[in-house]
């Protein structure tokens, strides 16, 4: 008794220290993404129908627009060289009309421009404090002469709200072909330490509550869970190691199949789909493999869970143990496999020269979320299977539909417009996208994605536990 009390105290201290360590590491890894996310109010270019008159010393083009972003990172313009070789410079600037200040200005040698191609200028630094300001893009020149100058494209038929095109400061109809990209501030950034501190205090308080309850021998859910985990840890370990040993028993390559399987799938899909999607997706092999690895885990784990209770009927009828253990151990066995399959992913990432950044330390987070999500689904399936053996057939169909409904080998942009909004309610897509952002983009996803991942996991777990708990006493009558 005394020993467990000491252990609980030690466990609590470890938990708190670990928490502090994790949030500190996370702060530095997530960095910028805690403060800013890609804005929903970026301005997209219209498709132009004609070029303006040439930009000369006598002619200046200006477009004003209302900025709804918190900061801007760059612009694009579509400039026409009028199918000839021009010389001289053109000056492009972004002004803040609200406060009357030039934010950014660049001098472009017009001879470097290609006719009618959309050209992007990324600012060296992001310009902040522009929210709800009227900004203007000005294209002028100090040496351009008619016959030797460029002209921007614009759409004569479109007049947008909050935007105005000017020729020589005279308002005219039409919209310039330009786009502005920038970020929105996320409130988690400035409040990060406050939120994490509050969660930390709750954690400490809960630890104190547990210690108090332990001291007074009171019951609590937390203590019960810790006790069960401790008591059945060895059993879960044994069951997982059994599954793992059995899986590749009597096969020559053994564990290497875990390694080859996703790799072979990836190679086949790569050859089949690469010509279609390669141009659209950067690092297509890694994009593919990331999806295959995560989806492969989910489908294997849930597929095994279907038979977790029914397959162990002989045991359940004879020995008492919490029945939750069976599906959980199945998911854990697949999770061991998942960790092995990360190795080929790493190798392919290195071969295809994906810039791997510090963001990979967040990978365990998304994997844990996915494991918890699978456990929840596993509970539902294993419990359902006891009462209706149809579940195994239904599930094989559902998981196939789920696979095609998740952008694993295709980009999300090929889905019909009507379906795309539903994609964000697909938990698997959420996990896979999160994972790809970490590995391919090398940055932490926006804070909202974390919330979504955790929410999907918890939701699945809670529903799973509720269903499983309701059914578990009746299992034995149906086995």
């Amino acid at each position: 008794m005394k020993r467990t009390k000491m252990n609980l105290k030690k466990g609590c201290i470890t938990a708190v220290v670990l928490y502090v360590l994790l949030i500190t590491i996370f702060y530095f890894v997530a960095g910028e993404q805690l403060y800013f996310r890609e804005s929903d109010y970026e301005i997209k270019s219209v498709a132009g129908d004609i070029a303006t008159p040439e930009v000369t010393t006598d002619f200046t083009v200006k477009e004003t627009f209302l900025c709804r972003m918190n900061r801007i990172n760059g612009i694009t313009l579509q400039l026409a060289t009028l199918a000839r070789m021009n010389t001289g410079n053109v000056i492009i600037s972004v002004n803040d009309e609200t406060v009357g200040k030039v934010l950014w200005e660049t001098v472009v040698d017009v001879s470097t421009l290609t006719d009618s191609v959309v050209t992007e200028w990324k600012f060296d630094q992001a310009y902040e404090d522009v929210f709800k300001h009227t900004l203007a893009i000005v294209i002028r020149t100090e040496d351009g002469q008619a016959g030797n100058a460029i002209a921007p494209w614009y759409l004569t038929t479109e007049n947008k709200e909050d935007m105005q095109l000017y020729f020589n400061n005279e308002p005219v109809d039409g919209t310039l072909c330009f786009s502005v990209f920038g970020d929105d501030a996320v409130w988690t950034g400035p409040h990060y330490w406050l939120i994490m501190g509050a969660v930390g205090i709750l954690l400490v308080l809960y630890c104190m509550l547990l210690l108090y309850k332990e001291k007074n021998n009171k019951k609590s859910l937390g203590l019960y869970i810790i006790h069960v985990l401790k008591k059945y840890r060895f059993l879960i370990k044994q069951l997982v190691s059994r599954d793992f040993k059995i899986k590749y028993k009597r096969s020559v390559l053994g564990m290497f199949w875990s390694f080859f399987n996703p790799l072979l799938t990836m190679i086949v899909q790569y050859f089949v789909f690469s010509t279609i999607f390669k141009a659209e997706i950067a690092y297509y092999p890694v994009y593919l493999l990331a999806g295959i690895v995560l989806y492969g885990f989910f489908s294997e784990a849930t597929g095994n869970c279907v038979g977790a209770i029914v397959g162990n009927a002989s045991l359940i009828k004879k020995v008492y143990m919490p029945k939750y253990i069976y599906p959980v151990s199945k998911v854990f066995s697949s999770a061991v496999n998942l960790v092995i399959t990360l190795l080929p992913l790493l190798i392919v990432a290195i071969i295809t020269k994906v810039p791997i950044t510090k963001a990979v330390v967040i990978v365990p987070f998304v994997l844990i979320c996915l494991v918890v999500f699978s456990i929840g689904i596993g509970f539902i399936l294993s419990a359902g299977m006891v009462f209706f053996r149809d579940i195994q057939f239904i599930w094989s169909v559902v998981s196939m539909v789920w696979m095609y409904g998740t952008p694993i080998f295709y980009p999300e942009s090929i889905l019909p417009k009507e379906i795309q909004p539903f994609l964000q309610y697909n938990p698997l897509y959420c996990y896979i996208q999160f994972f790809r952002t970490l590995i391919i983009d090398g940055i932490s996803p926006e804070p909202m994605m974390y919330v979504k991942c955790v929410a999907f996991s918890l939701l699945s777990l809670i529903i799973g536990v509720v269903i499983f708990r309701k059914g578990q006493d009746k299992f034995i009558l149906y086995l």
Partner: protein
Amino acid sequence: MSNIKNMIEVEDVSIKFRMSSDKILSLKEFVIAKVSKRMNYNEFWALNKVHVTVKKGEVLGIIGHNGAGKSTLLKVISGIMKPTSGKVSLYGNVVPMLELGSGFDMELSGKENIFLNGAILGYEEEFLHEKYDEILEFSELGEFINTPLRNYSSGMVMRLAFSIATVVNPEILIVDEILAVGDADFQKKSKKRMQELMSGGTTVIFVSHTLSQIRELCNNVLWLEHGEVQMYGDAEEVCDAYSGKS
């Protein structure tokens, strides 16, 4: 007697099975049955108000004909089944020996199975490491311990299972007909082991069809018939009555 602690209290335990005329295991059958209202269940009491108290160190025998509810009672006591009504209270750790070797995996070696089955029975890891040699010795498997179980003879499997199950000194031991294991020598050895356990203060619930074993080992005997207690009391008396009737 009254100052000896109760280890098991079974209070008015009843179990009702709903035997639907045919077991519905698919969604289609369920829907059809539901729609056509053919869900007729036959209710069936596997146990009916069974009331038993077992004190520390006592050996309780359970006898009765096939289908009398003996195994169901053991399942209720070991927590595998929940009673429909009534309550079971246990005051100690239980090791059920309902059917030996049910947690074995035929692909794994004897050694791996010792740890797997030990974990299923709820033993701790350190404990198994400590007792590994003892289990190996008792099972008389020798070097076979490293071969997969599928190559064992059935007697060897049972010997290993018995050795694992009895290596602990549980507070409550639940035994369902397991003494007829292995050859004559091993049977003698296992009987001795059981007697050791029983004299060591373990509370035992023991199901057997062999009346001589019951008379030899038990203090009290519970006679079940169709889920109801036919007779409960001193071992000799109940056994006499049981053998007189049948």
